């Protein structure tokens, strides 16, 4: 499984959404499934999937799929 597949899988399982919804333009709080509660589940899911630990500031900043990729790139994950 490549990193993009891992990212989509983490979003899919953490937010309980269809994989097709996981595109760069998907933003926090624009769908009912990505609310503040699910956001922390998503963070935990991404951390577990990629073996990283985000900075506290990054958790607030992660407001879209695109930004999630950018933050993971800071941890050496390539897309």
């Amino acid at each position, binding site marked *: 499984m490549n990193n993009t597949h891992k990212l989509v899988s983490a979003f899919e399982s953490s937010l309980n959404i269809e994989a097709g919804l996981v595109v760069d333009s998907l933003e926090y709080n624009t769908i009912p499934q990505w609310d503040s*509660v699910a956001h*922390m*589940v998503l*963070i*935990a*899911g991404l951390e*577990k999937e990629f*073996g990283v*630990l985000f900075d*506290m500031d990054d958790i607030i900043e992660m407001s879209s799929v695109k930004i999630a990729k950018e933050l993971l790139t800071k941890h050496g994950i390539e897309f």
Partner: protein
Amino acid sequence: MGEHAQKLGACVLITGSTSGIGLALAELLSGLGYVVAINSRSSSACEALAKKLNGIALPFDVTDSAQLDLSFRLLHQQLTKNSIELKGFVHCAGSMNSAPLHAIKADSLNTLYLEHIESAVMLSKWASRLMINVADAAMVFMSSIVAKQGSEGQVAYSTIKSAVSGLVASLAKEVAPYGIRVNGVEPGVIDTPLIHELSEERRLDIVNNTLLQRLGSPEDVASVIQFLLSEQAKFVTGQMIAVDGGLKL
């Protein structure tokens, strides 16, 4: 599966666990098979106790946010490496400062705030992150009997400790969706280094005002915290439990 085996792979972080109630709790939980993460400001004390209990030494000052961040990263690394889950967090660190109203200094009030409240919030942020997706995770915070009953000479301490009940009530609501329970305990007068400054006369007075006619022991409080962390308390959250032997101040 026996209780001991059930706890294998489960870690409880206890701040202030090299003395007093924290130490009693660390020894109790270790005996039940939990991996205890031992914290205090003293590296040597943490390492000695962690070695004795086969736990994890995590020395840091709970009022130092940089140390706190780094320590949680180290804890996360160790837990991940050993396939251990953070099942519990107990915040025992903190000092007591007794002074009459006219002698309270802003600095000492601020120190109490940092030790008991700001640290509790910042530690909760980290602990709850590591507890998401962990079954039966729980946190316990230390308040005091003086938060409800008040005590002469403890305006500052009781004010700070009363804030713990607000923290517990709100935090319990915020983390309930993740299955994390949050409770607090309100110890009475417990025979720990915190009360060594009390005169013998004052200690006797306290004993006489306690229904059970003795000071509490650290083990008395530790056993209640252990219950709150356990599956036996799986339907208990947002509560403050007094452990005071029936003391009326």
